[in-house]
């Protein structure tokens, strides 16, 4: 164990040290959360503009006017980038992980508080640089969130490929640095700062998910950082890592000898683990919430841990499944395809174990539980389109069609967001000392569930019909014309879904100030964060050092006085 004296710093008094350059993991967690909250509304607004443009391509919008094809592609790029990096990576890990990992393992803070502050502020700078890309000459880049070279590597490849693209790459490089610092901190904290009795196999599944996510981040972000630096050099220093001999509009680019596929390999070596970085914390929080509100131990705790570990491990061996159509050797497709299919096995284990947790449960339908149930449904729906895309033969008709965004939005977009919502409704009382409004939460839940299914399930049908991704207009190809009706339906569904998020936003801020006061353990949950005050004091446990006697999910234990046994309850539950 690391000497814990260093963390017993007194609570800072000044506003700047307390709320801006704070070393307190709870404040940093909130900073990450609110950064992600602004980012998710920016990203959502961009997607709404995209959907509106697709069905009314010539409509003049207030402030923006008519959306040009290059503007549409900037929206595509920035929507994807902001959502993946500044929402799905930031909120579950940087936000909730930062706030609750130390408390759930019984630690007074993260292992490296200064590094923690530094990683948040680096993320913040990255976010500002990313947004700045909108406001430079040429606008934001149009190469998509995957930034495939040569499109991303040549200044002359289109508007937005000048300064906008440089800012985009710089922002991502900064984000990588921040994430590497964060990952080191999470791993060290989890391994070194657990309270007495908190063995690894007694950790809540949320802590396991944050640990595995941090390991993935440590191994993946370094690769993207290097790739980003190489790309910046290709763009500005005359190197040719990703650029072969070529021309743009008949003009020689001056580069030769590089490989566009090298970028794809480096990008997806990061990019595939990244989807697990986005979804693993959602799995953790879903397990936590399902168990709590089912009043039942999680079904197969060990299997859940091993499943997440194998998803993490296999996640590094499957990047090639994004490249079946890229011109990479077709023989490698066999290996990537088998590995990808293999990920279906631990994913199925998780699904069955969640269903097993609900079986013979006694379910309380509080708002966190609704979103956890929604997560399971979306995880099944989004997961099952995976085995189509994992087969290289089926990628021939489906790759780069709307089937792909349908698949990944359901699973790493909406399911992950449902994980964030479940976490928000679950931990809000602990973070802010007040309860959120349940009626508004239910309205938010049902509109969001039905709305997102109505937007993303039809994408699969569009994909079958051959509608390509990233088309700013669907008017040019005759075979796309019959799909306009379905596209229109999706846009209306998107508008309703976005409106439902305003209900959430109102509930969040209204409850923060006006919600009824929360008790220390409103959900009658068993993990350590519910043993401390609400909101937790600066050192988390008010000078106390928690000692852990039980596993994380001891609900409905026969013979126990209540239907839950806290992890810190001295009366140990018999080993099972």
């Amino acid at each position, binding site marked *: 164990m690391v000497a814990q004296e260093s963390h017993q710093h007194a609570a800072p008094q000044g506003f700047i040290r307390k709320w801006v350059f704070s070393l307190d993991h709870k404040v940093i967690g909130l900073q990450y959360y609110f950064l992600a909250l602004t980012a998710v509304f920016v990203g959502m607004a961009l997607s709404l503009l995209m959907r509106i443009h697709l069905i009314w391509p010539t409509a003049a919008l207030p402030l923006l006017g008519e959306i040009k*094809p290059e503007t549409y592609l900037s929206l595509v790029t920035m929507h994807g980038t902001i959502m993946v990096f500044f929402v799905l990576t930031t909120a579950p890990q940087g936000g909730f992980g930062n706030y609750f990992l130390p408390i759930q393992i019984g630690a007074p803070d993260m292992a490296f508080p200064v590094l923690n502050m530094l990683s948040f502020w680096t993320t913040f700078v990255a976010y500002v640089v990313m947004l700045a890309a909108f406001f430079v000459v040429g606008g934001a880049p*149009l190469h998509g969130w995957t930034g*495939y070279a*040569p*499109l991303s590597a*040549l200044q002359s490849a289109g508007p937005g490929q000048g300064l906008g693209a440089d800012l985009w790459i710089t922002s991502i490089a900064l984000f990588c640095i921040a994430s590497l610092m964060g990952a080191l901190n999470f791993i060290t904290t989890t391994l070194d700062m657990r309270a007495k009795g908190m063995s690894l196999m007694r950790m809540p599944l949320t802590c396991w998910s944050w640990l595995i996510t941090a390991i993935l981040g440590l191994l993946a972000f370094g690769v993207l950082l290097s790739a980003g630096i190489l790309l910046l050099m290709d763009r500005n220093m005359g190197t040719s890592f990703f650029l*072969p*001999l*070529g021309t*743009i509009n*008949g003009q*020689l*680019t001056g580069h030769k000898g590089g*490989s*566009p596929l090298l970028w794809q390999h480096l990008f997806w070596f990061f990019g595939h683990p990244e989807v697990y970085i986005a979804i693993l914390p959602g799995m953790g929080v879903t397990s936590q919430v399902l168990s709590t509100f089912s*009043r*039942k*131990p999680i*079904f*197969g705790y060990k*299997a859940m841990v091993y499943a997440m570990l194998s998803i993490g491990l296999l996640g590094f061996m499957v990047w090639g499944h994004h490249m079946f*159509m*890229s*011109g990479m050797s077709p023989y490698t497709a066999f290996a990537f395809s088998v590995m990808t*299919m*293999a990920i279906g*096995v631990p994913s*199925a*284990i998780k699904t*069955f174990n969640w269903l097993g947790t*609900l079986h*013979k449960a006694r*379910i309380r*339908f509080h708002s966190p539980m*609704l979103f956890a149930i929604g997560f*399971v*449904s979306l995880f*099944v*729906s989004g997961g*099952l389109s995976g*085995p189509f895309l*994992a087969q290289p*033969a*089926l990628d*021939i008709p489906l790759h*780069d069609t709307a089937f792909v965004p349908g698949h990944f939005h359901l699973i790493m977009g909406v399911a992950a967001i449902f994980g964030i919502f479940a976490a928000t409704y679950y931990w809000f009382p602990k973070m802010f000392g007040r309860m959120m409004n349940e009626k508004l939460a239910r309205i938010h839940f049902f509109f969001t*569930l*039905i709305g997102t299914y109505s937007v993303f399930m039809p994408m*699969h*049908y569009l994909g*079958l*019909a*051959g509608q390509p*991704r*990233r*088309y*700013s*207009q669907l008017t*040019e190809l005759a075979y796309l014309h019959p*799909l306009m009706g379905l596209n229109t339906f999706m846009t209306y569904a998107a508008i309703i879904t976005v409106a439902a998020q305003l209900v959430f936003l109102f509930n969040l801020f209204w409850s923060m100030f006006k919600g009824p006061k929360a008790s220390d353990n409103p959900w009658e949950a068993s993990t350590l964060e519910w043993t401390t005050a609400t909101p937790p004091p600066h050192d988390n446990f008010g000078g106390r050092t928690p000692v852990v006697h039980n596993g994380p999910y001891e609900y409905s234990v026969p013979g126990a006085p209540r239907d839950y046994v806290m992890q810190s309850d001295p009366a140990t539950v018999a080993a099972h």
Partner: protein
Amino acid sequence: MGLVLLCVIWLITFASTYFFVAKTWWFPHGASAATAALDHQFGVTLVLMGVIFVAAQLALGYFVWRYRDQPSAARADYSHGNLGLELMWTTLTAILFIGLNLMGSPIWAAERFRPAVDGATRVEVTAMQFAWYFRYPGPDGKFGIAKPELEDPSAGGDAALGLDPADPSSKDDVVTGIMEVPVGREVEVILRAHDVIHSFFVPAMRFKQDAVPGLAIHMHFTPTETGDFEIACAELCGLGHYKMHGMLKVVSPDEFDKWLAAREAEKQ
């Protein structure tokens, strides 16, 4: 609340499944030799995944309703899992997913592992922002030299591809803006790109392959029906990506020979 959840989850499940079963939106009519095997593999995958999808969602909806908290409900079952069950579904899903993968592999091998047959119609497909050009080797059967420094897209035709006029085997090459091929004979496409990555996507042929600068990618497909089939660009290539389309015209062998002869005659 349990009942509402059950209804919503079941309704979403039935609605989603209905449109897959009814094929309301479906693959375009396939007109190539690869269609049957590919569509069959898709169908098998759809049935298997569909059964799991429906079963899992129905179970989820049923459980949340059946095991809702109510005064008369029994205390939750204190169970940490069931190793036998877990081993069973782990094994079953492993067999299912790997089996599906093995089933699909021969189709991929047929499409990608062997070169085009001798006597295939050879067409070089070149992509650039934002157009497709098609080149036939001419009577000498050889594609002539093309040089990047000679490329002039604004001039179109031979000049767009940078064909070297000094090279005799370039002189008889035929460059067109529409891809014409004979029915029933394998087509060998040689995919190139000048500037950025594009992707040659012909939904009716069940054919897709990226065109990558610096690479000449050899692929093949066999059209089995005559007709006009749209070509789409499937890889984001810049602001004109959405309008980078082309036309594949599949005609009878006689018609194709006449058409090609006429184009070759124009070059003399």
